[in-house]
């Protein structure tokens, strides 16, 4: 029992279980909820990037029609701080007069209708004592943070490796700030009942929201309930308890009414994090036959003045290639900008762009096929620890991808391939994504009517968690998926980790696995001890589950159904919890592997007009055991679209004088539209991962990684121009 060695349900490309709700508009997102007596909040944001609030005029707003409360730092309650965590909760808003970035909340207005709240918010007058903001990555006055996460690494002698190399590539790369922009406007609806608090929130991590609000408002965690059954996307933006969440809760307490605070699109650019800019330098040394002798990778990325952000970029170079001499250093620089934070594939997105661009440059310097260069330096074991990978099928990714793409048709000379007015370029990139997993708990209940309810306080931000966990539970319990309901997005359920770090499917899948195993044990505690049961004396290792029945392995006639066992013991239902805790790498003797992938891209460039189109993408991914091939492919497709956005369109522009985000709308901040995206070919290869019992690896982020480099490499192949900065804009191609 409880293995997925010969899966029946898992793996199948089942439709989303929440599909009918989503196509009928019936799935409730946080801003779809309303409560009786609900009021609405609108925020006022700072119009300077550094300094202090000198004057506040709230009388006009307070006397505006329908206004219930106006909160500023002068009258807001003093709050505690959130819990220490991997992704720290920003300090609570409205606690003092300091301004650290343009767009920081300086007031919140509560009124009886949204229109009146917005109108009154415009009447709040704020005067400032302005200071000179720090806005440039290379501003010498800005504080630099060295090795922020203790992830810097060095082995061998990189300087000597470079010195004895036949060929050296030394290049600088930059990536722009990007903004997550989930389409769902982040919304918090907060309602107090005495010291009990209920919050609907756009979050990827309900248990963290509960912990943070309880600490900040000084109430017990058990009295805080956070709900997020559906979230309109996140891409990392929902990983922190942002100040607007706190404002809504504060406003609801002040107004003594439920309060809904829905961010506007421009507020989504300053209030919920964004991907930092990076400036990176990569030095590669290689022998004439293409063996790496050294990799040196340094990265500098942007950080808010009082922010923190886990974004290792240079670390990418510590896991990608077999190389005896490696050095990776990350630095951050504190600026007067809105918080930088996770955006799909943090660090990997930018670090991979630099490393895989440099590898492409090295291939041309050597006169070696870019694919061959990668295969010659293939890391059969983890390059840093020397341990065998828990799974790795990157070689198959390259081989299958090259075949599907037709890489062999590539003429190696830049500018040599043409179709009409278009220059044609082929480019590729390899991806070795990091491993991440956090503890998780799930609970499974089998009911007398034969239905099963499985749940954990996690979220499904579009990744397919509802669906794949329904499939997995059905598989593990020997049931048809139609009998199983998976619940999530409610802190009343057992605690689960964030939907982030490509780690949820492994964490939750293994918790569900443990819960199902424990539930089978509970059933056998009943039936095994029942002398008249066909399962008398059975232990979990003796049985199999099929068609809603537990039976002796190899003897399907000797068993009993879940419902019959419940009936025989007079029970309405039976439940069990299961925990998954990632095991320490040292114990396993393995290097825990994340997903791997190879990206092959064909671009078309019109050199007269500077037009750049992505014509084809072939992606081959090793994601371990794939729970649902249709939904996993959607993750890769979606990530690829995000990667095309990063490569060609997306740039959050900060006005150099004021620190204002200059393009905070979906009309000005360009994201890919339907016409920008060709059909995308996705294939999965590889085997179940050995590091966790279920064998899954997360595929939520890897689809984005490698696209920027593969596109830039294809642009070089098409045009002979090496673009070392993304997004690649028309002016760089003319």
């Amino acid at each position, binding site marked *: 029992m409880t293995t997925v060695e010969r899966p029946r349900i898992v793996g199948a490309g089942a*439709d989303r279980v929440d599909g*009918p709700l989503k*196509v009928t*508009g019936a799935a409730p*997102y946080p801003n779809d909820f309303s409560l009786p007596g609900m009021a609405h909040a609108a925020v006022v944001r700072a119009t300077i990037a550094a300094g202090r609030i000198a004057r506040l005029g709230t009388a006009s707003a307070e006397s505006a029609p329908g206004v219930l409360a106006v909160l500023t730092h002068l009258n807001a309650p003093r709050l505690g701080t959130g819990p220490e965590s991997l992704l720290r909760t920003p300090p609570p808003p409205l606690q003092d007069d300091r301004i650290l970035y343009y767009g920081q909340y300086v007031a919140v207005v509560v009124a009886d209708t*949204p229109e009146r709240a917005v109108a009154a918010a415009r009447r709040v007058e704020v005067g400032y004592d302005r200071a000179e903001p720090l806005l440039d990555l290379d501003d010498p006055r800005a504080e630099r943070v060295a090795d922020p996460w203790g992830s810097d690494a060095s082995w061998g002698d990189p300087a000597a490796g470079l010195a004895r190399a036949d060929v050296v590539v030394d290049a600088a790369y930059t990536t722009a700030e990007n903004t997550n922009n989930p389409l769902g406007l982040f919304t918090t609806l907060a309602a107090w009942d005495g010291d009990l608090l209920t919050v609907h929130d756009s979050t990827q991590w309900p248990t963290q929201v509960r912990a943070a609000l309880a600490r900040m408002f000084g109430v017990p965690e058990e009295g805080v309930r956070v709900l997020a059954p*559906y979230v309109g996307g996140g891409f990392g933006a929902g990983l922190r308890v942002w100040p607007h969440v706190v404002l809504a809760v504060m406003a609801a307490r002040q107004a003594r009414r439920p309060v809904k605070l829905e961010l506007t699109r421009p507020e989504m650019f300053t209030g919920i994090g964004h991907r930092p800019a990076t400036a990176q330098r990569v030095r590669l040394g290689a022998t004439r036959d293409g063996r790496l002798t050294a990799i040196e990778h340094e990265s500098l990325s942007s950080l808010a003045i009082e922010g923190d952000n886990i974004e290792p970029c240079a670390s990418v170079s510590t896991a990608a290639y077999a190389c005896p001499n490696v050095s990776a250093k990350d630095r951050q620089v504190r600026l007067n900008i809105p918080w930088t934070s996770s955006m799909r594939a943090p660090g990997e997105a930018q670090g991979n762009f630099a490393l895989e661009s440099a590898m492409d440059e090295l291939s041309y310097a050597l006169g070696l096929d870019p694919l061959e260069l990668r295969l010659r330096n293939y890391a059969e074991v983890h390059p840093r620890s020397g341990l065998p990978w828990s799974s790795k099928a990157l070689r198959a990714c390259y081989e299958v991808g090259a075949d599907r793409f037709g890489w062999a048709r590539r003429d190696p000379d830049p500018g040599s391939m043409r179709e009409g007015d278009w220059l044609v370029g082929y480019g590729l990139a390899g991806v070795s994504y990091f491993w991440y997993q956090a503890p998780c708990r799930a609970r499974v209940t089998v009911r007398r009517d034969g239905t099963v309810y499985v749940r954990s306080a996690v979220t499904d931000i579009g990744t397919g968690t509802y669906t794949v966990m329904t499939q997995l539970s059905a598989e593990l319990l020997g049931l048809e998926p139609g009998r199983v309901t998976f619940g999530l997005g409610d802190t009343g359920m057992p605690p689960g980790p964030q939907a982030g770090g490509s780690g949820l499917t492994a964490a939750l899948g293994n918790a569900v696995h443990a819960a199902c195993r424990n539930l089978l044990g509970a059933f056998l505690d009943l039936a095994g001890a029942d002398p008249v049961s066909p399962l008398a004396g059975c232990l979990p290792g003796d049985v199999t589950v099929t068609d809603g029945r537990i039976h002796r392995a190899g003897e399907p006639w000797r068993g009993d159904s879940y419902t019959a066992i419940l009936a025989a013991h007079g029970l309405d239902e039976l439940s069990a919890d299961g925990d998954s805790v990632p095991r320490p790498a040292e114990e396993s003797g393995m290097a825990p592997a994340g997903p791997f992938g190879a990206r092959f891209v064909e671009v078309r460039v019109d050199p007269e007009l500077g037009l750049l189109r992505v014509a084809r993408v072939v992606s081959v991914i090793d994601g371990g055991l794939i729970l649902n091939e249709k939904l996993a492919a959607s993750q890769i497709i979606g990530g690829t*679209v995000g990667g095309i956005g990063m490569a060609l369109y997306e740039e959050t522009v900060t006005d150099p004088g004021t620190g204002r985000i200059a393009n905070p*709308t979906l009309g000005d901040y360009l994201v890919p539209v339907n016409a920008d995206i060709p059909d995308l070919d996705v294939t999965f290869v590889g085997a179940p991962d050995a590091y966790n019992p279920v064998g899954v690896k997360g595929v939520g982020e890897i689809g984005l990684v490698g696209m920027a480099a593969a596109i830039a490499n294809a642009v070089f192949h098409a045009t002979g121009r090496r673009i070392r900065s993304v997004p690649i804009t028309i002016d760089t191609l003319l």
Partner: protein
Amino acid sequence: MTTLTVNGRDYPLDLDDARLTLLDALRDRLGLTGTKKGCDQGACGACTVIADGRRILSCLTLAAQCDGRAITTIEGLGSGDRLHPVQEAFVRHDAFQCGYCTSGQIMSAVCLLAEGRAGSDADIREFMSGNLCRCGAYPNIVAAIREVARDA
């Protein structure tokens, strides 16, 4: 007092605030939350509804402009428990992930098909480009619409 006619039903609406958009009227006053707000600036398409047979952005339309117009929202597609063929195709092709833009995508797709503009993949891509999908389900959206166009 004005009357909104939505999905064939008349809703009396007290226009106490002339700033009320059709989108907010649908969501906040009529409780029809299937239509989504993604930008409130006419840039994302999430709020697309059908007015007198044409797709419009309900965030850029004042409720006061809708007296006497026949509005169709996502809640008005399909019949009873039966999904509209576009809704079915979206599920089958996994043409969404988070689902937030989906109502607008489907309303646009329904109009696109009715207008006869789904003749080629290039046309579908072009005419669906007013509806942003940040999850990046575009190829599957094209596949879903292509299938409905072919079967029509």
